[in-house]
């Protein structure tokens, strides 16, 4: 792998940037791998990278039905934070946050991780109480967090309407200053390039259509390019995970929903942080290009169509205009949807399954981008050892039978 550097950029300028090395190979599948990862999104690619880099398992394939990162990884609004309420989730997301903080160096790829701060606004007394509790819990878990009152919020976010004249006046906010955004494509590409350099085969345009088992144990995957053997198989297919479980012969407590996002035309800098509101239900940040990146809640019905419906967009923009009246005449440029796999307690499932040697990492729903490095790392550890990593253990699928849920639903700053 040719390392990227400032000097390299300079050097390639002399040949009009026409001679950059390809970022990864396009290999033909080997007959058998030590580990097969199904799904080439950020989580799958990160898993493959850490398997090869940290856990010494280099005979690995990532099997992706489309192109790398074309699922939710490249469709999300890129908010990264770790201020979850419960110990189990705070530790998992904080593990990811620590990896984010060194990721560009580690991958030799600029993932544009920008710790510009994430605000979660409070509009009611209950919001204030919940937020105070969450910030306190965060601090006990070593996760940074502050609670601000309305005046402090108005000072820090000048264009936000903090007056008393709004329908849902802002009473305060939490802020996690280490939170922020990262460039989603770069995360997928960075992991892919680094994994490829360590010998991982990235098999694109390869759809898994079934799992082959011998005496009930998985021994590989059926694909549109034929059978590929695998000693262990890890499925990381986000919104399609319920379908994959069905192919493997069991059920998951997941429902697939469209989640939409939209971006505006590029405008001059107005928002230098990430601002989220659960009560009016919208969130916003501004990309380096200048477009406003906006999202909100899922469409309420089940869907796999990678598009949502207009009432949800309207609702989202109402929330944005409520918070930022100054943006009421900004035009929206593009809108799209991804399919998110929501779980009953709004927490992921990182788990062994009823099929030996088959593992699933799914249920990240509307908020898994922020976890990409941590999820990949703990899943890689689990696949390498055949035993779940301690941080992953509480997220086993049997919690929906034992009742040991990790209820982040109302509790955390929720959503994304």
């Amino acid at each position: 792998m040719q390392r990227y550097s400032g000097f390299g950029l300079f050097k390639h300028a002399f040949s009009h940037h026409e001679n950059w090395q390809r970022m990864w190979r396009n290999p033909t599948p080997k007959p058998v791998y030590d580990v097969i990862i199904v799904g080439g999104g950020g989580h799958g690619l990160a898993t493959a990278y850490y398997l090869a880099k940290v856990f010494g398992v280099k005979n690995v394939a990532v099997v992706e039905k489309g192109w790398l990162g074309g699922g939710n990884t490249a469709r999300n609004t890129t908010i990264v934070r770790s201020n979850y309420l419960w110990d189990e989730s705070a530790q998992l997301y904080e593990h990811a946050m620590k990896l984010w903080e060194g990721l560009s160096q580690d991958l030799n790829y600029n993932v544009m991780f920008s710790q510009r701060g994430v605000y979660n606004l409070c509009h009611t007394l209950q919001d204030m109480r919940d937020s105070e509790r969450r910030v306190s819990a965060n601090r006990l878990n070593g996760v940074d967090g502050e609670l601000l009152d309305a005046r402090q919020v108005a000072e820090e976010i000048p264009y936000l309407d903090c007056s008393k004249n709004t329908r849902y006046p802002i009473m305060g906010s939490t802020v996690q200053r280490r939170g922020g955004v990262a460039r989603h494509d770069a995360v997928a590409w960075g992991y892919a390039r680094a994994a490829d350099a360590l010998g991982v085969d990235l098999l694109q345009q390869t759809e898994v259509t079934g799992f082959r088992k011998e005496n009930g144990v998985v021994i590989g995957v059926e694909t549109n390019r034929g059978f590929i053997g695998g000693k262990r198989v890890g499925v990381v297919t986000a919104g399609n995970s319920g379908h994959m479980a069905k192919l493997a012969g069991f059920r998951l407590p997941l429902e697939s929903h469209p989640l939409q996002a939209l971006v505006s035309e590029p405008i001059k800098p107005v928002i230098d942080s990430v601002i989220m509101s659960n009560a009016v239900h919208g969130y916003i940040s501004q990309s380096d290009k200048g477009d406003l990146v906006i999202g909100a809640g899922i469409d309420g019905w089940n869907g796999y169509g990678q598009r949502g419906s207009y009432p949800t967009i309207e609702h989202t923009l109402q929330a944005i205009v409520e918070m930022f009246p100054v943006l009421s005449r900004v035009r929206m440029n593009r809108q799209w949807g991804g399919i998110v796999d929501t779980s009953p307690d709004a927490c992921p499932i990182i788990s062994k399954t009823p099929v030996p040697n088959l593992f699933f990492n799914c249920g990240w729903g509307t908020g898994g981008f922020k976890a990409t490095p941590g999820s990949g790392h703990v899943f890689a550890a689990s696949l390498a050892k055949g035993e779940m990593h301690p941080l992953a253990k509480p997220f086993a699928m049997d919690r929906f039978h034992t009742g040991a849920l990790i209820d982040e639903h109302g509790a955390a700053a929720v959503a994304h």
Partner: protein
Amino acid sequence: MLNIFCPHCGETRSEEEFHAHGQAHIVRPENPAECSDEEWGDYIFFRDNPRGIHHELWVHSGGCRKFFNATRHTVTYEIYETYKIGEKPSVTEASVAAAKASAQGVTA
């Protein structure tokens, strides 16, 4: 935007008037106290979540406020039918597969 026919009102109305409530025809166990953890967990948390034909519960929340069922495709989002609680769907995964097979038989 979905346009949904409410079988109670007898009118097709836009999606904003409705709320989806997930999979339909889920039967509550007769004796919850006698359920194993497995059975109770399945009942509370596990849904079919199919990629294809889905029978689902809706409420006309901004209209007559009554519940009804719909058969909808979760990829094309096409709504095949809506029907009242207690009625059976006429379009099912099996019936669609059979119709497809016979259509192919005719053209082949």
